[in-house]
């Protein structure tokens, strides 16, 4: 019975998305979407528990045995990422109610929640499936839904941002598809486990190496890895606040997961080290951390500032993957979780400001910190976590990353990680300065604190930032197990 959970995580949002689309306007679509997201979070929690206690779950769709049929194969890695995605969805949806009513035209509300659920379906599907072509299908489901969601933003730039993301996202997905096709042509299978047993014999073929390169570049586009990140700042800046929260906390995380799967499960251990991919990750990670953090400092829009910071944080994860050691992967996975928490909290707080002021440019938010103390508090703690101050979740992931770098005596990486934190101090400081120390602008005089329904989810994530900064049993414990599965012998 427990194995059905792996399937229900995908089917429940899938079946409710079309139902929500035809519900009448009002708050009913939201209620259904919230119940679905909450039950997904519970299911994902049970799934993680089951995987940790009873080992890998394998689910055969349609009763067709793998490798012929599609198999959902869940180990600690998927279950961990699925839990992040589902939990963030469950926390984002209560926030969505008011924020979406403010930012999205009333007649689009049912379709908006339908697209949110489709996006959730796609993201959860990617985490559940054990079939590399199925990954492409779910990747496109989530991407198409997110293009539509981004284009719902109020400014006209939302359309161009969505268009830009669509072009780059589709090129990325098609690259992935080419890679899968080339690998299929040499192995005749699409099942990840089956590929893991067949690929070692054909690794020397040019076709397989080319396929590997295509897949890595394709995912790097979806991941917003440094030189391929150009779509991300616009998309996050102009999307409705809720969409930014949801995508920033989940979409790139799931892409990181796919990258891990391809590098460590599908392709045999150590293959990436024989290709330039390994050094490429470290170089791209380092370049991403530095350039994106510096760009963030110069942004005049706080959503955009945080978006550039997201690119930098992806750089940390890529760096962790580049180390290709158990500690490096633990760091990447822990940061995956922690970054979802801190960016979720920060974008929610910014969304609360947008809810009250209708804008998030620096000069429009001057002095609002005093009028909105709770929102401001959330930004301060989220920002501290982003910097990596001890006692917050951000510290834990930076710590493991530094340890992983020291293990390999990668002094440059250590220096980059630390200077990345210093740059974060500058851009977080810039936000806090504008919010608290600048004199209040005329428009900001009548602003009051954000409604409780926006503050509760925000503070839930903020407190999670503090909690997971002090108690690391769940994050580090699970991430270590997951990393052991990835680098170790396949169970």
């Amino acid at each position, binding site marked *: 019975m427990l194995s*059905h959970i792996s399937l229900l995580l995908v089917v429940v949002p899938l079946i409710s998305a*079309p139902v929500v*689309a*035809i519900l009448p306007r009002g708050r009913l679509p939201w209620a259904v979407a919230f119940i679905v997201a909450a039950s997904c979070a519970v299911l994902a929690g049970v799934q993680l528990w089951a995987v940790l206690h009873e080992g890998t779950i394998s689910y055969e769709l349609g*009763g067709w045995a793998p490798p012929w049929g599609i198999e959902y194969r869940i180990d600690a890695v998927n279950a961990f990422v699925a839990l992040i995605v589902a939990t963030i969805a469950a926390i984002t949806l209560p926030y969505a109610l008011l924020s979406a009513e403010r930012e999205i035209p009333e007649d689009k509300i049912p379709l908006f929640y339908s697209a949110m659920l489709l996006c959730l379906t796609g993201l959860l599907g990617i985490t559940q499936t054990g079939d590399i072509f199925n990954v492409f299908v779910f990747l496109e489901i989530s991407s198409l839904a997110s293009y539509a969601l981004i284009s719902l933003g109020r400014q006209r730039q939302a359309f161009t941002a969505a268009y830009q993301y669509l072009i780059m996202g589709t090129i990325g997905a098609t690259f992935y598809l080419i890679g899968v096709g080339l690998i299929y042509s040499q192995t005749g299978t699409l099942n990840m486990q089956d590929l893991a047993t067949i690929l070692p014999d054909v690794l020397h073929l040019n076709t397989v190496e080319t396929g590997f390169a295509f897949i890595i570049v394709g995912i790097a586009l979806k991941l917003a890895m440094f030189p391929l990140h150009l779509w991300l700042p616009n998309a996050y800046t102009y999307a409705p606040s809720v969409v930014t929260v949801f995508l920033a906390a989940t979409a790139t995380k799931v892409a990181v997961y796919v990258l891990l799967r391809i590098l460590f499960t599908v392709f045999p251990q150590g293959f990436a080290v024989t290709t330039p991919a390994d050094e490429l990750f470290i170089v791209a990670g380092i370049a991403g951390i530095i350039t994106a953090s510096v760009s963030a400092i110069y942004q005049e829009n706080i959503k955009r500032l945080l978006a550039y910071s997201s690119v930098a944080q992806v750089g940390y994860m890529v760096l962790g993957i580049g180390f290709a050691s158990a500690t490096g992967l633990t760091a990447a996975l822990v940061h995956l979780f922690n970054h979802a928490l801190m960016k979720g909290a920060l974008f929610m707080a910014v969304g609360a400001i947008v809810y009250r002021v209708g804008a998030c440019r620096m000069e429009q938010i001057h002095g609002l910190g005093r009028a909105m103390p709770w929102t401001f508090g959330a930004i301060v703690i989220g920002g501290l976590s982003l910097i990596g101050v001890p006692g917050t979740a951000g510290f834990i992931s930076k710590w493991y990353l530094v340890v992983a770098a020291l293990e390999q005596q990668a002094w440059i990486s250590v220096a980059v990680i630390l200077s990345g934190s210093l740059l974060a101090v500058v851009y977080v400081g810039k936000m806090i300065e504008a919010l608290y120390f600048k004199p209040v602008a005329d428009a900001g005089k009548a602003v009051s604190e954000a409604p409780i329904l926006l503050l509760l989810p925000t503070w839930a994530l903020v407190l999670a930032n503090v909690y997971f900064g002090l108690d690391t049993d769940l994050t580090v414990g699970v991430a270590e197990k997951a990393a052991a599965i990835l680098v170790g012998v396949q169970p």
Partner: protein
Amino acid sequence: MRPNLILQVVAKFVIPLMILFALYVQFHGDFGPGGGFQAGVIFSAAFILYSLVFGLDTAEKIIPAHWLRILAALGVVIYAGVGVASLLLGGNYLDYTLLGSNPIAGQHLGILLVELGVGITVAAAMLIMFFAFAGRGRE
């Protein structure tokens, strides 16, 4: 819109054939080439031809936009519902074997229903797209 007699007569002759062909492709899908995707597109092509010849307003009277949205959703629900039905019968998701009295009948029924769902959704989605683009800027 200027009515064109030749087009209207030819369209009235062709449209039933198109719909018939769509249904053939739909229900022949488990014996030969065919299935919901192709049938849905052919089916919607008949309606698109109709609205090109007789005008959008006439076409929208035949299939109102909100019905299309319901149909598009219905197709997905049929598809996913078949999966859930096999789940409730004690099998895995989309395991058609349990749907009929014997495995072959079950597989037969299952794929037919799933393709029906696909066909409905594809046809409705194609028409929604067409009406959305063609109707843009009129109101």
